[in-house]
């Protein structure tokens, strides 16, 4: 009995140790600092049209307020949330003043739910719809920090402040900041508004959702805030050169760049002997482009000889086109001392062409992943270890074995006969 108990205790201790060992990494991963905290700025349209009573029988404003209360309750702790309004303060007819009307309702920072809710409750539908200026200001609100940044724009009308195209504004913002995404939500949208809001979203890799019910609004905003809270790898900004000699040298990692139409981008990677280079590139179509496009990634030596290439082509609607390549650098034979790693030049060219009337600057967003991994890459045979498989193999082996047996038998008979005659 005592032995049994001791055994049980031992098993328990072992399991507890195992448990601790397995559970430990989970705790070690959770390492959050304010510098990397995700930031979200909710930009809400408080223009006069928000008075319309067409969302589940209540006004758009009331629906938005209700949704905001739910969102504020559900916001994860680590997210720094801010609220900005557009068209909340100037009720007049002067377009110039009306188009500057955007204000920070609640600053981006650690969330005080009660305060934020009180601020939201004060909103009354008032003025114009200056989406472009509001986005610019929202991008300023989110400035600083290394975490992911997200603007959630909730609007019920298209921008009334032309000629500043909010789509272009969004693209400029995305080109300046890294990892900034704008998601747009349209309340009971019409065709023109759908186009404008989805254009804003596509310019930054965000999503557009049309909302016709209160619960949809709350669910979607919650989903977007949660998405911001998810840890993602933040790319590092780099600028490729127009030729290999001037190109920046990249290590393993994730990089972003911009590439204009008709431009080429070069990067350099050092690949030691016995290591393998893996590179993939994707170019995002953040504006309206013509329906046929392609992407070419070439790895060349410094002398310009092509080693390997990755190609992709497509047509139709797309967010991104991507391709990749790998280049195993063979182990150096009879190596004496350290051998310098080979410098591989990577050339990226895309064949997107802008649709009519679309601005060509800034360039299209480019994402490069570089991995240099250590290890073998070789094959001596088509089949695994040169082994065979299948009925033909068995037949051939049996036949060979049989023939060998016959020959052996005849040989030994002949030898016996020879021995006997002697």
């Amino acid at each position, binding site marked *: 009995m005592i032995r*049994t108990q001791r055994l049980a205790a031992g098993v328990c201790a072992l399991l507890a140790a195992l448990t601790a060992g397995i559970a430990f990494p*989970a705790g070690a991963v959770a390492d959050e600092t304010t510098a990397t905290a995700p930031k979200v700025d909710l930009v809400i349209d408080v223009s006069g049209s928000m008075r319309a009573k067409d969302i589940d029988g209540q006004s758009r404003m009331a629906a938005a307020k209700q949704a905001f209360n739910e969102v504020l309750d559900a916001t994860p702790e680590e997210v720094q949330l801010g609220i900005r309004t557009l068209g909340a303060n100037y009720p007049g007819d002067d377009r110039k003043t009306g188009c500057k009307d955007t204000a920070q309702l609640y600053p981006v920072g650690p969330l005080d739910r009660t305060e934020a809710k009180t601020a939201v409750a004060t909103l009354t539908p008032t003025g114009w719809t200056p989406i472009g200026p509001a986005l610019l200001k929202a991008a300023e609100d989110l400035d600083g920090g290394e975490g992911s940044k997200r603007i959630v724009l909730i609007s019920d009308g298209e921008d009334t402040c032309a000629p500043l195209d909010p789509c272009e504004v969004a693209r400029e913002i995305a080109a300046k900041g890294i990892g900034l995404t704008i998601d747009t939500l349209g309340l009971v949208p019409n065709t023109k508004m759908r186009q404008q809001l989805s254009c804003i979203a596509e310019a930054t890799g965000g999503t557009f*959702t049309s909302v016709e019910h209160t619960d949809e609004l709350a669910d979607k905003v919650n989903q977007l805030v949660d998405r911001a809270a998810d840890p993602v790898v933040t790319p590092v900004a780099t600028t490729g050169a127009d030729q290999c000699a001037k190109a920046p040298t990249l290590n393993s990692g994730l990089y972003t760049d911009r590439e204009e139409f008709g431009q080429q981008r070069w990067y350099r990677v050092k690949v030691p002997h016995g290591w393998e280079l893996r590179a993939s590139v994707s170019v995002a179509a953040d504006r309206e482009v013509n329906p046929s496009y392609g992407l070419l990634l070439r790895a060349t030596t410094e002398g310009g000889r092509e080693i390997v290439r990755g190609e992709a082509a497509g047509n139709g609607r797309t967010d991104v086109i991507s391709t*990749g390549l790998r280049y195993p650098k063979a182990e150096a034979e009879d190596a004496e001392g350290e051998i310098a790693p080979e410098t591989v030049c990577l050339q990226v060219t895309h064949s997107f062409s802008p649709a009519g009337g679309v601005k060509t600057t800034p360039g299209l967003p480019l994402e490069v992943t570089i991995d240099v*991994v250590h290890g073998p890459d070789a094959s001596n045979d088509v089949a695994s270890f040169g082994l065979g498989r299948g009925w033909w193999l068995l037949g051939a082996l049996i036949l060979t074995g049989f023939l060998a047996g016959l020959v052996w038998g005849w040989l030994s008979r002949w030898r016996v006969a020879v021995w006997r005659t002697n």
Partner: protein
Amino acid sequence: MRITRVLSASLLMLGLAVTPAVADSSPSPSASEDGGAPTEAGTSFRTATEIEQGQTATASGSAGDYLYWSFPADAGQRPTVKATVKLPDTHAAETWQIDVYDGLRRRQSCQYGAQTRAAAAGGTPSGGAASVDLTCVLRTVRAWSEPWANDPLPGTYYIRLTVVNLATSDLGLPVGAEVRVDSEDVGGAAAVDGSLAHPLVPGAGAIAQGGEEESTKEALLASLEPSGGWASGWWSDRWVWTAIGGALAALAGVGGYALTRGSGRPSRVTPGA
């Protein structure tokens, strides 16, 4: 009796402790905490939601979104990606498509299956298409191929689900998506020689150069492995075939030898010689 109870209690404890740890170890966007299937999808390669093979992942999105998932596939597997899109009550005619990309973000062809499918315009009264089913059967994943080839290799695979033509009036309408990956084990027929240095998992280089510790702190581009880890690459049923072949050859050899000897001693040899 008692030891059984103690054992089962500690096993339960272990189970409880392991489940969240396993869920946490995948820093994929919104891999659900309860260890169940993900209920979200990513919106780019970078944010793709990681799913396991055999899991049915769901997501809600808006028509026009590009939804991304990623899954691990190992050598000898032939993955089948299935997606179902639930369309809103009223919609115009639209065409949906799944694309599969490998760990190098190279597009992978589907051998067969309806990769692209159109849904007829539908409304609640007329009862048009309420959902679209898409399938893509990939080629068999090989353990190795030449760097110039586009063969599927062990590693991470990305699924992209999107609508390819859409009326402006349908932009942004809520849609639901369901994705599942299963694979058939092709076995020794696809066992090729050679193996990769490391499966084609994005972000592997950062680990190779910076050490395991440095990368665990940050989010990883991809972290899921096939259940049971990546295949080491040396075992295939070719060993069995070859061994059986060798044995049969030996038997046939003995048989052939025996045939030349006839039964017993040669008749010319007199008994007692």
